[in-house]
């Protein structure tokens, strides 16, 4: 099976707990996304995925919902 990777994203524009759920719900529909955990409190999303998708597709999915997502820089 494909290799898995973890993507850490900073998400801006969330205003309540439903926003985080909406993002996780949308990512669960994206083939290749294995898990996702989004938090309004930390303004972050942690996504594990395999090679059926890529970071850009994941970011595009979140941005299509009306939020701004970018890879977290440490």
């Amino acid at each position, binding site marked *: 099976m494909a290799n898995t990777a973890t993507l850490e994203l900073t998400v801006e524009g969330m205003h*309540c707990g439903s926003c985080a*759920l*909406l993002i996780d719900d*949308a990512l669960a529909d994206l083939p290749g996304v294995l898990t996702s955990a989004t938090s309004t409190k930390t303004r972050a999303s942690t996504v594990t995925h395999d090679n059926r998708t890529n970071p850009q597709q994941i970011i595009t999915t979140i941005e299509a919902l009306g939020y701004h997502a970018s890879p977290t820089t440490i």
Partner: protein
Amino acid sequence: MNLTAVLVTGLLAGGVSCAAVQGGLLAALIARQRGPATAPAHQAAAASASGRATRAGHDPAPANARPNPGLALVEDLVPVAGFLAGKLVSHALLGALLGAVGATVRLSVHLSAAVQLLAGAAVIVFGLAQLGVPGFRRIVIEPPASMGKLVLRSARSRAAFAPALLGLASILIPCGVTLSVEALALTSGSALAGAATMAVYVIGTSPLFALLGYAARKAATAWRGRLAVATGIALLAMGLITFNGGLEVAGSPLAASRLAASLTPAVSDTPAGVATVAGGHQTVTITATSDGYSPATVHARAGIPTTVLIQSDDAQGCIRAFTVPDLDIQQILPATGQTRVEIGTLHPGTLAYACGMGMYTGTITAS
């Protein structure tokens, strides 16, 4: 609280805030229920909103396209109605619980004011957090992960009753505006008033949910990122109103009505009333309607026993909780009828009264 104000809050702030996000969950749920989609459900949901016109054009029709527009409308609105029914039930039940809890501290006017001040302060803090004000940014109400998973499971169910289940579960993911209405339910004074407050709020959000569920999901997508500012401003406004209500009920000189009176002592929209004196006793007559108390000011004599005669004329909501903070008096008025409240001998000065939530006020000036 005047339920019309709650309805308008639901219609505007709550509708925009809830419908844009929870509507997105609902739209994706509906898209998934309609069989295997060619695109992920959230894309299909957005496309089905914007693409009704394009289906007749060159875009390939989805496998689940429905030729009868009337039937399509019904099919779209049934799950939205199911969702709203579930949401109405869970929110009204919580409102009843909050109202009942709030009623237990109604024993004292000052405790009631304290609850309202705390609720108002909490809503103001949520508003500042929403606006990203430094020092408040990290204050976010987020359901525990287990609750979030429960809601997500409802949203991803393919059962026929899944929209209603999602509506029920939406109580676990309140937006800031919903939280502030929950604060109002807490200060409403009874289980019935609390349930009515929350139910009217959900009903207020309905038109926008129906609209977003059917036609405007693309617009909702555009709003979502900007909602933090919009709901932050709405929260600040509601928090300030609730907090000021607490100040009014507490009889604080910092309450808006008292500040306004001190700034413009001679200006009044309505003519002042005058107490009637007979046999060494005076009666101050006030009319309570759903719009407030009138006249706003009544002139009386200091030094003689006084009765306030309140004539209720279809009075509704918190106006029925006639409160005189300085005398620690709270009297529940009938919707229609007369109530006599003995306030003893007046001292020279101004005696303020208010509704139970401090939103409607009046004064008796004794000299």
